[in-house]
């Protein structure tokens, strides 16, 4: 993997964010930067092809339709789904999970049913389920082992029962970096006839994902964290399940035939894509997948492992710094959360910013997890394919500056 060449594809990485301070972008878990190859495909689409899809018979409509449909095929292949019918485009992970919730609530979930989630989740995989309390549906949460930040797997077995209709978990943690054993968790769900939904927002961008191997029923992720634009995300669902659950939104494009009394639903995946889609975003996501595949997901994962290992080693040497998450790189992604003595993470991130280093501070939309870790917030650095060891060094220099500022 040629990092120098890769970095040239991302024009933003050349930016100075403060006089004399070049951008060191370590907030990839929030959103990734975009390569020219994606930016160009989108602007080229608007310059050349733009039309509405699935309706016109004219040339541009035909081209746009083909490009948008093609993107579905690319993205489904990327996660090893069997066919594009199983690939629904949404706005983001949150919308994908909400889609599953609404579609299951309309016919598959009833009073007395239970759901199993985990304390490791992003709010987007907690709130859609806890609001079902009003409908008499209970959510149980699997705890973590706080020392190494891994799930207490045995609790899935303990919590599951005949009322459990859905088991869901985060694939890669956006706070701890933990990569969860989704295949094993899915087996527990299926042995008990429950659906299995995986939040893949932090895994798909960074490693090879195979939805068939993990045998999940639903898999949600966001385009903007994997080099694609904002406003496009995806939901994979098994065909036979998608055939059998209710649509999420109703209106144009998702129907086959409409009379004033009754409508029949369109074929998959369009049954779940009501109204004019984010066509350019979808095409951009296809281009992002092309880019990631041209680099190679295994190489990207290797690169991030090396960077993360290096970062963890260097951070361990910093006095007064507490790290979270597993040490074993086999089950760890490129996310590093830490707290520094009594310095508030907000102050850490602000001082880092003056050096051009972009890191995140706060609860990372995972308040229950942060609370479980006994913190109010953490500082987080997260890596991607274009990050370098030199940038990790800048992170460490930034921390030294924080310590100096706070006279530690």
């Amino acid at each position, binding site marked *: 993997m040629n990092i120098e060449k890769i970095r040239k594809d991302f024009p933003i990485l050349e930016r100075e964010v403060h006089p004399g301070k070049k951008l060191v972008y370590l907030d990839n878990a929030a959103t990734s930067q975009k390569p020219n190859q994606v930016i160009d495909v989108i602007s080229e689409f608007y310059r050349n092809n733009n039309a509405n899809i699935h309706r016109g018979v004219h040339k541009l409509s035909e081209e746009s339709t083909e490009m948008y449909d093609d993107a579905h095929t690319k993205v489904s292949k990327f996660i090893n789904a069997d066919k594009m019918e199983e690939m629904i485009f949404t706005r983001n992970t949150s919308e994908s999970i909400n889609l599953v919730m609404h579609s299951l609530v309309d016919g598959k979930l009833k009073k007395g049913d239970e759901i199993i989630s985990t304390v490791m989740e992003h709010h987007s995989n907690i709130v859609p389920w806890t609001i079902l309390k009003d409908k008499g549906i209970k959510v149980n949460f699997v705890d973590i082992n706080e020392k190494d930040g891994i799930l207490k797997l045995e609790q899935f077995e303990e919590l599951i029962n005949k009322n459990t209709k859905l088991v869901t978990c985060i694939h890669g943690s956006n706070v701890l970096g933990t990569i969860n054993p989704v295949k094993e968790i899915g087996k527990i769900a299926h042995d008990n006839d429950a659906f299995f939904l995986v939040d893949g927002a932090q895994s798909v961008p960074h490693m090879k994902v195979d939805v068939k191997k993990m045998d999940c029923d639903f898999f949600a992720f966001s385009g903007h964290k994997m080099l694609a634009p904002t406003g496009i995300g995806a939901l994979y669902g098994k065909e036979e399940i998608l055939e059998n659950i209710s649509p999420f939104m109703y209106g144009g494009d998702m129907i086959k035939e409409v009379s004033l009394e009754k409508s029949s639903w369109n074929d998959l995946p369009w049954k779940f894509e009501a109204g004019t889609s984010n066509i350019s975003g979808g095409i951009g996501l296809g281009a992002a997948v092309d880019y990631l595949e041209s680099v190679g997901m295994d190489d990207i994962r290797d690169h991030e492992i090396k960077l993360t290992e290096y970062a963890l080693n260097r951070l361990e040497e910093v006095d007064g710094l507490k790290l979270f998450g597993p040490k074993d790189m086999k089950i760890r992604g490129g996310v590093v959360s830490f707290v520094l003595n009594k*310095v*508030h*993470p*907000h*102050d850490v991130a*602000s*001082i880092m910013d003056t050096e051009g280093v972009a890191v995140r*501070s*706060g*609860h990372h939309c995972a*308040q229950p997890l*942060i609370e479980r870790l006994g*913190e*109010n*917030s953490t500082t987080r650095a997260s890596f991607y394919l274009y990050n370098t060891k030199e940038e990790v060094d800048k992170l460490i220099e930034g921390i030294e500056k924080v310590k100096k*500022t*706070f*006279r530690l």
Partner: protein
Amino acid sequence: MYQENILEHYENPQNFGEISNPTVSVEDSNPLCGDKLGVHILIDDKEIIKDIKFHGHGCAISMAAMSMLTEKLLGKNINYIKDLSKDDILEMLGIPISMTRIKCALLSLKISKLGFIEYHKDK
């Protein structure tokens, strides 16, 4: 942003603690940052702030602002808070505050306003 006076207030916050019989007690948070501060105010018959103490946790900016504001408010009429503005807080801090940190600086103002409202609610 991290000038001496800010760090001084952060490391040695003034009026930090609690009052056992406050006239009003309010708290608020900036959930995104995980900052949470509360304030106890003791107000006498003439509506003068006799004592004011704050508690909780926050970043250097929110803590320093709260610390400075309690110093400013002590001995003043509670209605002084009514006209207190964002600019007053920024002037009090005397440092350039970036867009992203304005919420931290203004948590103190928000809590004081809540205290003012709480005081008049009981009447």
